[in-house]
Structure formats: structure tokens, C-alpha cells
């Protein structure tokens, strides 16, 4: 017995720290983020100045806030292609209720939250009930909401936007919470960055430290096995879709509060960016593996590249090419890292 124990210890020591690091889903993305930061810092002084940092952190936070629940959903084994358009739905709903229907701003916020939770529930319910790929179900939701966003906005406002939220009573408190800036090193940083950090921490804590997190990994990893050991897989899936919609509510309302106005087609196309951030951050497309921090680092990479290209005076038309290349690189790197980590175990 002692002999076995001694041998066991040796077997662990072989791989040790390196493996422990490598096996973290977000490890590859962290390296990537450092490389990209150094790269653009060399290219441009503005990029690493406080003003520059405030700028790309802002861009990263809008993606990152959504990337966290999208990553959790992906770990749970599903996609939400309606995650982007739901941002518009949430903002438009609050905007129309306050500026056109004259509803109290807080009542409107609660109402739009309920609306979003209902949308998330429908997504989750249909996915669990029909057993169809979430890809198809949420594609339907995506197209449907896209139509509703435009149709209702035009119907109510005769334009393709809802504006003047800044004239609504109670607006200023909201602006302080969601759309103000914090001065760091003499430069204004969007408060949304703080929210992003907070929600990333919360998401990570939920995934790794709670039983709900355990259920998310299990449901995405093997739904059948999970069900057989008593994990409420359907409830977990529905909760994840509702969580995504709740975050869309937060982000949509942050946008309308910050700018006082919102376009009917806001968020369309963003859903893929969220998925890209999650994948760059180490999420497995097949579910069961990934991290919230990784998704946020993915969003950070996205934000840095988007602004870095501008600061480096490159033609920003090529931005998406970089994103595409990074996505492929990340997937390959993650695959390699995972294989290496698993081999070094044997």
C-alpha cells in the first residue's frame, strides 16, 4: 500500500504545475491576450495610454457581458443565436414603454425583464421539449425577434429607433448606475467595465463553486448520464437560456440608458461575436467544457484587436479577417492544449 502511494505521488509530480495550468480552459486565451496587448502596445502609444485602455475596455465590456452567459450556455451544451437580437428587444421594450406609453421607468424595467425572461424560457422550453438542436430553435427566435423589433418599432414610432429616454423621469439615477463613467488616471472609464468584471466573477463562481455550476458542466458533458444520476437537466437548460436573456436585458438597457436612444436593428450579428469570444476563451462547441473567465478574456481580445487596428492606423475594413483568424487559431490551440494535457496524464 505504501509502495503504491509512493508511486502514485511520482506519477503526479511528473506533470505537476504545467499540466495544472494547461488544463485550465482559459489558459490559451490568456496567453493570446498578453501577446495581442504587447503587439499593439508596440505599434501604438495611444493603445497603452489610459485613454486608449478605457476605449478598448469599453468595447470589450459590451461583448464580454454577454459572452459570460453565452459561454455558460455553451458549457451547458447549447447555443443561443437570438442572444444578440434580444439586446435590441430589451432596450426597445423599455424605451417604448417609457417614452411612448408613459410608463414609470422602473415599472418598464421590470416589465422588460419579465418579457426577456419569458423569451429565454420559451427558448429553453422548446429546446428541452422538442430535443431539436438549440441552433435551429434559437435561429427561429432570432428571425422572429428581428421582425418584431423592426415591426413594432416602426408601428409605434414611425421610425427605426426609439429615442428621448433621457427625458423620462428617473433617468438620471439609472444613468449613474448603468451609463456613467469612473475617473481612473484622469480618464473616464465606463462603469459597464465594472459590471463586466463583476458578472464575470459571479459567472465563474457559479460555474466552479455551486451545485448549479456542476449541473451545467454535467448537462453539457453528457445529458443522459446526468439525468440518470438525478441532475435536473431540463431545468438547468431552461435556467441557462433565461440567464442569457436576463443578461440581454441588462446590456440592452445599459445601451438605451447610456445613449438615450436605441436602433431597431441593434444587436443583430452580435450573437456570433459572443460565441467567438466564448470559443476563443476555451469553450468546447460540443459542451461540457469551458470557463466564464475565458469568455471574458476572449471578449478582451476582441476589444483590443478592434481598437488596436484603429490605433495602429491600419485599415479597419480588415478587422473581421483578424477575428476569423484568431478564432481558428484559438480552436486549434485549445485542441492541442487539451490533447497535450490529457496525454501527460497517462
Amino acid at each position, binding site marked *: 500500500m505504501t509502495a503504491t*502511494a509512493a508511486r502514485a505521488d511520482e506519477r503526479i509530480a511528473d506533470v505537476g504545475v504545467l499540466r495544472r495550468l494547461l488544463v485550465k480552459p482559459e489558459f490559451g486565451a490568456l496567453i493570446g491576450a498578453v501577446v495581442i496587448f504587447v503587439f499593439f502596445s508596440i505599434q501604438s502609444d495611444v493603445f497603452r495610454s489610459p485613454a486608449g485602455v478605457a476605449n478598448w475596455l469599453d468595447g470589450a465590456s459590451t461583448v464580454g457581458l454577454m459572452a459570460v452567459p453565452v459561454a455558460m450556455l455553451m458549457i451547458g451544451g447549447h447555443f443561443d443565436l437570438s442572444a444578440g437580437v434580444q439586446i435590441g428587444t430589451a432596450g426597445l421594450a423599455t424605451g417604448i414603454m417609457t417614452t411612448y406609453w408613459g410608463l414609470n421607468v422602473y415599472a418598464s424595467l421590470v416589465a422588460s425583464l419579465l418579457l426577456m425572461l419569458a423569451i429565454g424560457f420559451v427558448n429553453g422550453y422548446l429546446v428541452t421539449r422538442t430535443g431539436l438542436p438549440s441552433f435551429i430553435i434559437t435561429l427561429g427566435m432570432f428571425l422572429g425577434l428581428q421582425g418584431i423589433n423592426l415591426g413594432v418599432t416602426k408601428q409605434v414610432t414611425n421610425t427605426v429607433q426609439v429615442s428621448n429616454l433621457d427625458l423620462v423621469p428617473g433617468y438620471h439615477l439609472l444613468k449613474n448606475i448603468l451609463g456613467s463613467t469612473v475617473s481612473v488616471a484622469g480618464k473616464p472609464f465606463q462603469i459597464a467595465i465594472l459590471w463586466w468584471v463583476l458578472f464575470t466573477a459571479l459567472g465563474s463562481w457559479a460555474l466552479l463553486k455551486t451545485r448549479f*455550476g456542476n449541473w451545467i458542466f454535467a448537462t453539457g458533458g453528457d445529458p443522459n448520464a446526468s439525468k440518470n444520476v*438525478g441532475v435536473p437537466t431540463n431545468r438547468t437548460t431552461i435556467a441557462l437560456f433565461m440567464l442569457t436573456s436576463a443578461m440581454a436585458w441588462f446590456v440592452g438597457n445599459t445601451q438605451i440608458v447610456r445613449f438615450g436612444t436605441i436602433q431597431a436593428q441593434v444587436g443583430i450579428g452580435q450573437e456570433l461575436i459572443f460565441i467567438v469570444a466564448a470559443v476563443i476563451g476555451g469553450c468546447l462547441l460540443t459542451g461540457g467544457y469551458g470557463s466564464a473567465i475565458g469568455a471574458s478574456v476572449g471578449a478582451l481580445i476582441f476589444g483590443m484587436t478592434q481598437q488596436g487596428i484603429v490605433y495602429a492606423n491600419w485599415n479597419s475594413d480588415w478587422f473581421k479577417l483578424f477575428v476569423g483568424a484568431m478564432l481558428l487559431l484559438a480552436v486549434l490551440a485549445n485542441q492541442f492544449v487539451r490533447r497535450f494535457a*490529457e496525454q501527460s*496524464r497517462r
Partner: protein
Amino acid sequence: MSDIEITEASEVSPGADDVPLLEIRDVTKMFGSVISLSDISTTVRAGQVTCVLGDNGAGKSTFIKILSGVYQPDRGDVLMDGEPVRFSSPREALDAGVATVFQDLAVVPLMAVWRNFFLGSEPTKGWGPFRRFDAETAKKITRAEMADMGIDIRDLDQPVGTLSGGERQSVAIARAVHFGARLLILDEPTSALGVKQAGTVLKYIVQARDKGLGVIFITHNPHHAYPVGDRFLLLKRGKSLGDFAKSEISLAELTRLMAGGAELEQLAHELEREGDKSETSALGRELLDDTKTLG
């Protein structure tokens, strides 16, 4: 206690005059037009082992999946403590104290050993919004339970998918043993295990039985089943070939009913004759030894 007739009808071994832990009456299960099980009946008593034996595709896994809440029977009744029960999910069965080692083990390959061990039954600490998965307790118990099985887990954070087949099976067994409060169901738990670990599993079955649990043990190996079993349910193509108390059947008969004892013995001899140098000779000897000591 009102069901005196049931106790008599189930004609079990002497001394067991109470209501059986589990009674299965004429259970039928169909998948579309396929009749996977038809009119199966047996009993499981607290402190006894009921073995389910049969060929591949005989319906053994389907049978236990009805008892563990994965499937619901199309006809027939399952009675627990004399009361009809209908588990509509594995969760309900677990809550009633029924723990199962499924044939496919029901582990999530990418998750750590300790996370798998407590999956679906996570211990928590803290309260309200701060309630969290008690990882220390989970790891401690997992390590202890695995050590009891004779498996020395190198690293509890290792994904279950990277364990060897036998280690993986041991995780599933240790988990069921830990959570099974009243009934323990094992679906071919020894199929991937070494001789020593298989022995440990048999020991576990005996321990669970002695603790007063009911046990359902599925195996292809009559030499594993006979020494520990109190009751034997034989299935073939979804039908019952018989439901025997141990006193009613010998190992030889059991083996013959299953696959033909003579064939098996001949196979054992053939294996031993073939290769003196090969591993198969060891297997053949083992089989022969088994037949001698038990038969």
C-alpha cells in the same frame, strides 16, 4: 402489512415473513412495437440479493431501468414496502433510496472524479445566495470511498474520461454504494474489473446485504451470481425463464439454464489446452477452478 397474500405469493426463503422491500408484478415494457420485457415478476427483500441473469439483449438493463426511474413500465406494478410506486425520474428513485450502477456507468467524462461522484447529490454549505458546493467534503469522501474499493486515485481532479475502464467502473460503483440507502442496483458492475476488484465488488454486495439493503445484481457470470445471490431471475428475449430462490436451483442448473453448463466447461478446457504460454490459459484455469469450487 395488509398484503398478507403478497408475502405468501412470493414464496421466498423461510424467515422472511415481512413485506418485501420491492416487489415487481408482471411488468411489461415496450419500445414502439418491440416488446423488450413481458410479464416479469420477482421480489427483492431487504438483506437479500436478487440476481438477474440472461443473454445479451434479454432485457436485463431495461428491467433495472424501470426500477431506477429511467423508464416507466407499460403494464404491471412495482411495489416498494407493499405500496405501489411509479418513479417518473431517476431523481425520484434516488430520493426513495434506490441507487444504480448503470451499464454505461452514467459518468460525465470531462468532469473531475470528485464532481462525478457527487453529481446530482452535491453536498452544500453556506445558506441563501451563498450556498455552494462543499468541495472539501466531496473530495474527502470520494477519496475515502475509492480507497475502500482498493482504487488509489492519483488525482481527484482528473477527468473521469481519462481513468482506465475499471477505475471508471469503480467510481460508479463506489458512488452507488455511498448513496444507496435502501436498494442497490448493479448492472454488470464487474465487466471491466480485474480479478481483485471484481472480488471487492462481490464483497461490497455482501456488505450491503448484511447492512440490510436490498441488492439487484446483473451479471453474465453465474459463478459471480451464485455465491452471493438469494434469488435468481432468468430472462431470455424479454421473457422470464423462471424466478428461483437459491434453495430451488443449483449452480449447475443455473449455468445450464443460462448458456449450457456443459458448453462452458468444455470452453474452459479448450482454453486451458490451447495456449500454455498465453493469458488464456490463466483464464481457463480460473474458469475451471470456479466450476470446481462452486459447482
